[in-house]
């Protein structure tokens, strides 16, 4: 499995293709998160993280997913730093012999990365900068697993 925390941009399609190989692989699920400009006013998004803890937290979440489902591999890429609207923030991919495992594991990884990996988003518009607030729904989503 592969966990990458980086400020550099990445190519989600190239990552998907590189990940999609291997004996016995039947099902690959990917998630890509994009900097969303809800009402066309976003100048930039800044992502802060906690170097060291970030990698540990993501690795622990991936390890958990690998024990819960029959996965052949998992990939997590998460950017930090300044990103523009429309840029990929992060990507998760899972592969398995069967689609149900690949889907559930990718969904689980996203829920946990969202609320348990130490990243914080700050949005800048013409009106200034604000830290994105965590949503109750994101915390509630963890209870599904």
């Amino acid at each position, binding site marked *: 499995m592969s966990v990458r925390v980086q400020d550099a941009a990445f190519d989600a399609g190239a990552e998907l293709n590189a990940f999609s190989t291997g004996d016995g692989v039947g099902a690959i699920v990917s998630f890509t998160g994009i900097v969303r400009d809800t009402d066309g006013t976003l100048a930039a998004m800044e992502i*802060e*993280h906690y170097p060291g803890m970030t990698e*540990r937290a993501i690795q622990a979440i991936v390890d958990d997913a690998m024990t819960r489902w029959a996965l052949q591999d998992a990939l997590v890429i998460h950017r930090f730093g300044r990103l523009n609207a429309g840029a990929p923030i992060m990507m998760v991919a899972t592969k398995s012999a069967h689609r149900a495992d690949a889907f559930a594991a990718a969904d689980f990884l996203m829920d946990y990365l969202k609320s348990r990996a*130490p990243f914080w988003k700050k949005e800048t518009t013409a009106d200034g900068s604000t830290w994105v607030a*965590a949503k109750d729904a994101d915390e509630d989503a963890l209870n599904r697993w």
Partner: protein
Amino acid sequence: MNVMYFAWVRERIGVPFEDVQTTAATVSELVEELSAREDRYAAAFADVSALRVALDQELADFDAPLAGVREVAFFPPMTGG
């Protein structure tokens, strides 16, 4: 003990990390101690229900003991993904 602050906690306190000499037995005691020091700490820690804490890079509770801990980090709920 290295104490770190992230996101708006960092902005309110004004530094990303600092060395803190303390005899606090728990996270809550450390929060009280810091809040008593200066207004910027009191402002940052005004509502600890809006905060998370990590001890040596693992999420912990505010009543967790600090014995043996080298790094404490305070931050708002995560918003990654």
